[in-house]
């Protein structure tokens, strides 16, 4: 056996040993959330302090908002963190979830090819921008996957486009894949700012055409993207970690965690990826 192999075995054994010695009685909270909160690295950055404070592990299942809500309805998650306000309210109204709390927000933007064939740069609202794309019949890549971003996109169109119009491309893919598609095929798309910033270096042919370089420059309030957290109703299914879910909500909305959220990404992207917006945070920063 080679030296290199020998050198690898010890660390591997050490890992196995560590894994075997890990405390077993750690409580587990299952969080169903959107890909944007997980893929941006935010959760990875803030969750360790929850684990420390409550001696509980958070299992993050990152899926589209539609699937996250479905997981909550089926009792397969203890708490959900999503971004599709109307659907969150429905979820609570239908009794699947307990109270919804504000957590944070960022915004959406329209990105597209530098040449901007539909001439949307400088328009006043997102509705005008997508209308110009429709008039020019310029390719537009839609998530088409029932996600929070897809829901938002559908709410912006005044005349809902259909896929058989040729220029409207419903991909059924995640944000990263959709941005990549737009980059390669010279299409416009609606993206959340966090994912776009995180992926920007892989998207050389896309520029921000509507929404400005930061949330402060975004001219359209309709592109506001709020995230809410909702504990799953423990009465509908066996085994929901109701108490831990409540503690998670309190922790996530606490001023301390909120400040961590607001600081995340500033060093790497020059601006926060998410802006804190919980009730306790707003009270502390009126």
């Amino acid at each position, binding site marked *: 056996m080679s030296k290199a192999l020998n050198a690898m075995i010890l660390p591997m054994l050490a*890992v196995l040993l560590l894994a075997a010695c890990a405390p077993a009685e750690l409580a587990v909270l299952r969080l169903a959330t959107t890909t944007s909160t997980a*893929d941006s690295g935010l959760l*990875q950055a803030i969750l360790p302090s929850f684990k420390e404070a409550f001696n509980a592990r958070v*299992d993050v299942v990152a899926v589209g908002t539609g699937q996250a809500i479905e997981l909550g*309805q*089926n009792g397969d998650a203890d708490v959900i963190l999503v971004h599709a306000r109307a659907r969150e309210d429905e979820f609570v109204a239908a009794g699947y979830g307990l109270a919804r709390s504000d957590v944070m927000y960022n915004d959406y933007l329209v990105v597209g090819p530098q040449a901007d064939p539909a001439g949307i740069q400088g328009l006043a609202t997102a509705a005008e921008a997508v209308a110009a794309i429709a008039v020019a019949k310029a390719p537009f890549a839609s998530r088409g996957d029932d996600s929070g971003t897809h829901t938002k996109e559908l709410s912006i169109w005044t005349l809902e486009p259909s896929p058989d119009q040729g220029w409207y491309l419903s991909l059924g893919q995640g*944000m*990263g894949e959709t941005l990549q598609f737009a980059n390669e095929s010279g299409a416009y798309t609606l993206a959340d700012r966090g994912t776009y910033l995180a*992926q920007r270096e892989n998207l050389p042919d896309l520029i921000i055409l509507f929404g400005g370089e930061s949330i402060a420059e975004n001219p359209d309030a309709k592109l506001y993207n709020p995230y809410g957290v909702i504990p799953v109703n423990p009465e509908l299914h066996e085994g929901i970690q109701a108490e831990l879910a409540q503690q998670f909500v309190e922790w996530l909305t606490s001023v301390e965690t909120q400040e961590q959220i607001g600081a995340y990404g500033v060093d790497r992207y020059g601006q926060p990826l998410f802006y804190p917006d919980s009730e306790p945070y707003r009270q502390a920063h009126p």
Partner: protein
Amino acid sequence: MQLAAPSFLADLAEIVLLTIRVTGVALAAATLLGVPVGALMAFSRFPGRRLLVAVIYTGMGLPPVVVGLVVYLALSRSGPLGTLGWLFTPAAMTVAQTVIALPLVIGLTMTGLEAVDPQLRLQLRALGADRRQESWAMLGEARSAVIAAVVAGFGGIISEVGAAMLVGGNIEGQTRVLSTAIVLGTRMGEYSLALALGGILLALAFLVNIVFIRLQHRPPWWLGR
């Protein structure tokens, strides 16, 4: 999952070990179930056999996402097996991968055994072998094909991502395997990381296949001859 993180190597080892564990257990289960069933199918004649063969061949093309969805619906808290609490655990991934590999192992074992010279069987009977000895000797004769069946099952699940994502959830430190980590790396725009993980997955598959090829050519005593 960032390259710069000091715990990166430990995370990677964890992902690789879980991949080996889930795929290994699933493959062992599919082999232990699939080879006897495949042998039974090859050696017996009964009404409806052709239909069953067609079902098994169709199963060889089962889309992993469909398997994942069915396993999800079964293991969900609102599903029939929800009380097991297996959803989003390696157990759920193992179940899904076993279902994906099983038709491959059964179907290819069956065709491999059918290709063995029927004369051998008559000779074995003439030598006074009982049914069990006869089957075992036939399996030994078709060893290469049976191992190829297991290899096909392995190839079908080691890189499978649809079911692993759906029923495992790609939870960091819990259910993240190489294939789902590659998807995550791609989604996060960490292409070099995703490619590196792809290289590790291929290297792992290569090593395992070397072992299988060795078994084909120089079998240990417990595989006969």
